[in-house]
C-alpha cells in the first residue's frame, strides 16, 4: 500500500514537471510589442463611369451646364481643326503636335 501511494506521488510530481517544461517550451521568450491598429483608408471614388462631366479650372474640377459643355466642345473642335489646317499648310512635326488653348486640354 505504501509503495502504491509512493508510486502515485512520484507520478503526479513527474506529471507536474512535464507540464511545466511543456509550458516553458511553447511560451514565447519575448512579449510582442503592442501594435496600434492602422487607420482604414477611405475608398477613392470610382472614376470610370462618372455621371457628371467635369472640366479642370483654376480652383479644381467642377461640373458645368451641358450648354456650356457643348459650347466648349465646339470650340475644341474648331481649335483642333485650325491646328490641323496649320499642319496641312506647312507639314512639320511641331505643327502637327502644337498645343491649343482648348479647355479640354488645359
Amino acid at each position: 500500500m505504501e509503495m502504491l501511494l509512493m508510486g502515485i506521488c512520484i507520478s503526479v510530481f513527474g506529471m507536474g514537471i512535464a507540464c511545466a517544461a511543456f509550458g516553458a517550451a511553447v511560451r514565447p521568450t519575448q512579449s510582442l510589442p503592442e501594435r496600434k491598429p492602422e487607420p482604414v483608408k477611405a475608398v477613392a471614388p470610382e472614376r470610370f463611369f462618372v455621371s457628371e462631366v467635369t472640366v479642370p479650372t483654376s480652383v479644381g474640377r467642377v461640373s458645368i451646364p451641358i450648354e456650356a459643355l457643348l459650347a466648349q466642345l465646339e470650340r475644341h473642335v474648331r481649335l483642333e481643326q485650325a491646328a490641323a489646317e496649320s499642319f496641312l499648310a506647312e507639314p512639320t512635326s511641331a505643327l502637327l503636335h502644337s498645343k491649343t488653348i482648348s479647355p479640354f486640354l488645359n
Partner: protein
Amino acid sequence: MANAQYELLRGLEEADVDRVLALGSRISLSGGDELFPLGAHADYLYLVSHGQISLTLPMKVREQETDVQVEERTAWQTVGWSALIPPHRFTLRATATVGTEVVALSRDSLEKYFTTHPEVGYKVSLNLAAVIGQRLQLFQAMWLREVARMVEHRAA
C-alpha cells in the same frame, strides 16, 4: 464671273460654269433648317452660294444624344459630295446656321452632262478629289493629334 469661285467649278470656262449651274436649282434655307440628315440617300450635291452650313455628327453627352459640329461650309464651298461617291449615303447631318442659299445639283443630271462633256467632268472630278482629299488630310491630322494625347495620357 463670280460663279467661277465655286470650288467645284474652278478651272472651267465661264460658259461651262453657267451650263453646270443651269442643271441645278437654288434652295433657300433659314437658320436651323436641315439640308440633309445623317444616313439619307445622297442624290444631290450642293454648292453654297451664300450663308453657312454646319456639318454635324451625333454624340452622346451625359446620356443625351446631341449633334456636335465637325465642320463648317461657307460661300463657294461644296456640301454633300457623297452624291458622287458610292455608296451615295450622307455620313454627316447638314443644317443651315444662318440664312443660306445653295445650288442643288442632282447626280443624274451631272453624270449625263459629264458623259457628253468629258473635259468638264474631268476638271470637276479633280476639284472634287481636292475637296475630299482636304477632308481626309484634315481629319487624319486631327486623329493623330488625339492618338498622341491618348498615348501621352496613358504613359503618364
